[in-house]
């Protein structure tokens, strides 16, 4: 074990009474609850991580939060996860990690952790629980608004957690006491919800914000199974307050990537929040006042501060205060121009700067193992910008700040360039009160006077930005701008030298800002460097690159949530589903429905089962669950007229008690759906649709009724699941129906084809029995309330037992219907097929108008060479062709040398026909109707299979089987 020799004896938000053990790159280390992996590493004196991605240069921890570019981890676990910044991973006992050179490893092991989602609505969403966010949430809560406060850290408090007591007044502790009290008040409010470990990563129209919550990772082995590891929050807010803080910028100078160079604010966080001294002897290099807080806290913690190097020409008030109080030498108008060390930093070179910011005068060397840098601050405008909120360059602050409004959003605190604590508190309180009022809750309590501790951190003050500090030898190859992508000023100079002027172009030329950290430390510096290289005075003249979601990386598993495996998509089941399962049915998906495809008996494969099922239907009797067909009741005085306009054929004159097959087309005259419709009464029809199109047909009917023909007295009601439909098919089906429905006269004269009867079945269940056939055989469909579906299905089997009734699935259904040339919409048609193309000119009325009719007078729909539905018989009587197989003419060469092959069409359905004793197919073939008797070629893989063209009706073309 490496003792935590860099841990400070006092302070910090860590629990020294508990020791956590973990391994990093195989080394056994310890830390405490409250640590991140990064802070625990630093406590053990480890700053160096794996070398950089492209250059293999030594790298170290730079930041203390999501902006970390170097310290990336691969975490071991049941499903290992990579590219996690060590600065954001909370330490738990038993953690095992390796540091990564900018590239993680995807674990192929399925991730068995649970991920879920939650939807929440709120009056006010506050993002960020620092001083501004806490004040905003408190104000909005005080006004009675519903409030959601999210923060990515495990604790609320934001920057207050890093406040120190370097000024000796105890202001840090007072600040944290305020934050704790503010949090407790929010927790006690019934309509306020505080979500920690929750990153708001995407902001979308209408104040729709996505946030991911890390719920159990920090519990390590103690994480309860069955509770989601991460939760995706869908937040819809009337008002949003962005209190997202600001990111500190590094400085760009030679060798600025050496381990030991850290952001000054990160150093302060490690000292105060984690009670860790990241080095023994520090130099602080800054362009503004905020780094003096770091210097003071380092000094107070007993770390030697060798020097403060300040770019500004004059000693600021804050700098003078610091120098007086500590005696640390402060060099004004100076900058660090180089670093020394084998890997870790051992010293820096400091040179004076002239008025243009160019190094002048001799270099002075300072020994140090820590360089705390501050190049200024960039407000975290990401979420504002994701909503196309404008940005404005603020020269005083040397930062892009929100420069234009986003509806129902406001920024507060450091997110809009207000850095001093008193200002953040006031800003937040005002924003929270305004947001609550705008959401209908005026009357937020008046804000308190700024507390004394708020004078503690006054922010950066005047900034003298240094975008590019020239090195001593003119070389720019170690001036790193993007550490994660290893992009240097030399790389950027190559891109501007190649003519790029826009930050977006330079980004893509160099890959700058495209790594996992998305340029949080490099983005604004890059714009400053481009400006310097191009001689553009202000970064504002260049603008930023585009901020896009996600703000921080989000696991795909979190986005998927529970929508995996059995819960991926809904399965629709009929009332008879369990019976099918019990009979060993193999199911197929039809839309969202589960339909039995076939019922194999022991030892049967699909082909043999389907042959048996087909034979039963053609020679005896078989039954099938047809409940998935869409069903719509249509009622009204104009129902007949309406159906006449919707179907290509007539329904107005259909007599009650009878049914008719109908085809409906879209306005372009192409087949849209088909099915049988019953006339229940003068003003009532019962329409059936295809299984997959039920909802689309209802929408279609409603669209015409509501937008085109509101004068029609017609109402449509979807009743798909009201009815269980049992199809009973075959020469013996009449016998089965006679037993099942003894009250019914089933003779052909009394109950003809395409008639229906209402009756009460032998078991007492009311039923509507139709004589409809989708196979060409004598057939019935029994419709009963789905409550009785299971019972009537079993009764049907019982009634059919003496006749050997056989259940059949969709595969046999397909064979039976295809043998008769009956189409399946969406299989034999594809939105380019007219009823005439499909061989059904008889279904298109010439007497009345209907949707699509005008399109049949277009020259294109009258072409002789349109693709027609035909039957094909492979001449070898053996080959079952694949659906989709292309059809070509005989003798057409198919070698590459002969160029493109003219295609005549393709196969839409293909099966083995037990009735014909050979395979057959339906196909759409150009001018196919006129090719009957001819032989064409089906290109089945490498085989050229001769096929004979026939009418699509291959079985019983005379219809002798229909009446039994």
């Amino acid at each position, binding site marked *: 074990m490496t003792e935590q020799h860099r841990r400070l004896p006092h302070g910090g938000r860590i629990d020294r009474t508990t020791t956590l053990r973990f391994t990093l790159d195989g080394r056994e280390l310890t830390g405490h609850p409250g640590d991140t992996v990064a802070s625990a590493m630093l406590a053990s004196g480890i700053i160096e991580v794996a070398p950089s991605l492209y250059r293999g240069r030594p790298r170290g921890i730079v930041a203390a939060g999501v902006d970390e570019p170097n310290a990336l981890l691969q975490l071991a676990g049941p499903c290992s996860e990579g590219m996690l910044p060590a600065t954001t991973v909370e330490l738990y006992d038993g953690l095992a990690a390796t540091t990564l050179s900018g590239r993680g490893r995807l674990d192929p092991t399925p991730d068995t952790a649970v991920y879920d989602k*939650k939807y929440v609505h709120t009056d006010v969403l506050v993002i960020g629980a620092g001083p501004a966010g806490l004040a905003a949430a408190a104000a909005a809560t005080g006004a009675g608004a519903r409030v959601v406060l999210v923060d990515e850290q495990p604790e609320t408090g934001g920057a207050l957690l890093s406040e120190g007591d370097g000024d000796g007044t105890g202001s840090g502790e007072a600040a944290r006491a305020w934050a704790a009290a503010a949090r407790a008040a929010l927790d006690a409010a019934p309509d306020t919800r505080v979500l920690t470990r929750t990153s708001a990563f995407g902001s979308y129209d209408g104040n729709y914000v996505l946030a991911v919550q890390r719920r159990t990772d920090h519990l390590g082995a103690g994480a309860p199974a069955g509770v989601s590891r991460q939760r995706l929050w*869908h937040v*819809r807010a009337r008002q949003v307050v962005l209190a997202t803080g600001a990111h500190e910028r590094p400085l760009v100078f030679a060798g600025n990537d050496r381990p030991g160079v850290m952001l000054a604010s990160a150093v302060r966080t490690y000292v105060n929040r984690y009670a860790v001294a990241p080095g023994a002897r520090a130099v602080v290099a800054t362009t503004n006042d905020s780094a003096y807080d770091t210097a003071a806290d380092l000094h107070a913690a007993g770390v030697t501060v060798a020097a403060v190097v300040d770019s500004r020409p004059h000693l600021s008030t804050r700098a003078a205060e610091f120098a007086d109080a500590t005696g640390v030498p402060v060099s004004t108008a100076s900058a660090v121009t180089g670093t020394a060390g084998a890997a870790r930093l051992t010293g820096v070179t400091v040179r004076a700067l002239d008025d243009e910011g160019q190094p002048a005068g001799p270099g002075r060397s300072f020994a140090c193992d820590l360089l705390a840098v501050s190049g200024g601050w960039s407000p975290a405008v990401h979420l504002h910008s994701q909503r196309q909120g404008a940005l404005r360059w603020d020269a005083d602050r040397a930062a892009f700040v929100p420069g234009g409004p986003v509806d129902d959003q406001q920024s507060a605190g450091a997110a809009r360039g207000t850095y001093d604590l008193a200002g953040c508190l006031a800003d937040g309180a005002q924003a929270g009160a305004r947001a609550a009022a705008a959401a209908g809750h005026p009357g937020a309590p008046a804000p308190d006077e700024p507390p004394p501790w708020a004078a503690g951190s006054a922010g950066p003050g005047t900034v003298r930005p240094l975008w590019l500090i020239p090195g001593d030898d003119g070389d720019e190859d170690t001036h790193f701008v993007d550490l994660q992508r290893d992009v240097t000023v030399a790389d950027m100079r190559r891109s501007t030298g190649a003519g790029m002027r826009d930050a977006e172009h330079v980004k893509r030329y160099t890959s700058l800002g495209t790594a996992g950290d998305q340029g949080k430390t490099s983005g604004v510096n890059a714009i400053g460097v481009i400006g310097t290289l191009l001689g553009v005075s202000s970064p504002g003249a260049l603008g930023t690159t585009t901020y896009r979601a996600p703000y921080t990386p989000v696991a795909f598993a979190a986005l998927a949530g529970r929508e995996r495996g059995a819960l991926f998509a*809904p399965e*629709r*089941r009929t009332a008879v589903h369990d019976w099918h399962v019990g009979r060993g049915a193999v199911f197929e998906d039809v839309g969202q429905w589960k339909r039995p495809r076939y019922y194999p008996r022991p030892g049967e494969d699909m082909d043999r089962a389907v042959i048996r099922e087909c034979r039963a239907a053609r020679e005896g009797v078989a039954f099938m669950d047809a409940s998935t067909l869409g069903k719509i009741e249509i009622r009204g005085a104009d129902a007949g007229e309406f159906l006449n306009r919707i179907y290509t054929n007539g329904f107005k004159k259909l007599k009650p008690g009878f049914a008719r097959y109908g085809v409906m087309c879209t306005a372009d005259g192409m087949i849209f759906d088909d099915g049988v419709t019953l006339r229940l009464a003068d003003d009532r029809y019962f329409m059936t649709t295809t299984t997959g199109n039920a909802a689309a047909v209802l929408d279609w009917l409603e669209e015409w009724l509501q937008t085109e023909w509101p004068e029609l007295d017609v109402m449509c*009601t979807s009743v798909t699941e*009201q009815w269980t439909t049992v199809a009973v098919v075959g020469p013996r089906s009449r016998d089965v129906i006679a037993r099942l429905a003894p009250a019914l006269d089933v003779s052909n004269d009394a109950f003809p084809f395409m008639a229906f009867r*209402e009756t009460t079945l032998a078991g007492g269940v009311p039923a509507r029995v139709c004589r409809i056939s989708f196979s060409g055989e004598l057939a019935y469909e029994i419709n009963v309330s789905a409550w009785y579906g299971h019972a009537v299905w079993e009764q049907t089997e019982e009634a059919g037992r003496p006749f050997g009734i056989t259940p059949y699935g969709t595969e046999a259904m397909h064979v039976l219907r295809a043998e008769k040339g009956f189409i399946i919409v969406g299989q034999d048609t594809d939105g380019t097929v007219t009823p005439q193309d499909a061989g059904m000119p008889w279904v298109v009325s010439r007497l009345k108008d209907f949707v699509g009719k005008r399109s049949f007078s277009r020259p294109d729909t009258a072409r002789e060479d349109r693709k027609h539905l035909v039957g094909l018989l492979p001449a070898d009587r053996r080959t079952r062709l694949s659906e989709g197989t292309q059809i070509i003419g005989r003798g057409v060469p198919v070698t590459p040398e002969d160029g493109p092959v003219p295609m005549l069409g393709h196969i839409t359905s293909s099966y083995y026909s037990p009735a014909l004793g050979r395979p057959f197919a339906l196909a759409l073939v150009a001018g196919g109707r006129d090719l009957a008797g001819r032989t064409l070629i089906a290109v089945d893989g490498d085989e050229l299979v001769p096929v004979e063209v026939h009418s699509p009706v291959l079985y019983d073309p005379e219809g002798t089987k229909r009446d039994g």
Partner: protein
Amino acid sequence: MADLTATGPAALRRSPLAHLTDALRAATVTGPRAVALAEWPCAAMVSLRVDPASPAAGRIAQALGATLPARCGRTASAGSRTTLWLGPDEWLVVAPPGAPAPTAELAAALGEEPGSVVDVSANRTVLELRGPAARQVLEKGCALDLHPRVFGRGQAVSTLVGPVPVVLWRTGVDSYRLLPRSSFADHLARWLMDAMSEYALPEVD
């Protein structure tokens, strides 16, 4: 012809979630975050379409004993029957299991006027979700605002829970009815049981 609005022998009825009765019972969560799920099997339901300004609507209201609710989310109860608003001219009349569907009396009230009355008792089933954690369960899959200020007791809306379209009806402070199409009932029940399971475990914030 038989009367298809008449119901058959009760012994032959089988509700869409009959096969999950035991599983639903086993999924019950007790304790401070209790939540329970059960089917309200074979409730009677009638789909009603009518112009609310028509005389027929008045006769129907009289038959129901309550004015047809006029706005999204509203319901109207009279006796054991509740009428749920589904659209500007569309309602769902729900009566408890065992009660007959009022199809014939509503059809009589509609008479020859435009509109429709259709027995849809088997078209949907009803799931009852109860307990202090019920809202939290629903919030895992329902994008609507379920805060009592917005979605109070006696309100009902068409929405999605998980991937399943339902009518969601709040019947009490901690109790909801979900009315999916029968074919989706099994999936919805499994989705809800999955969402409920975490509340039996120690709370993670």
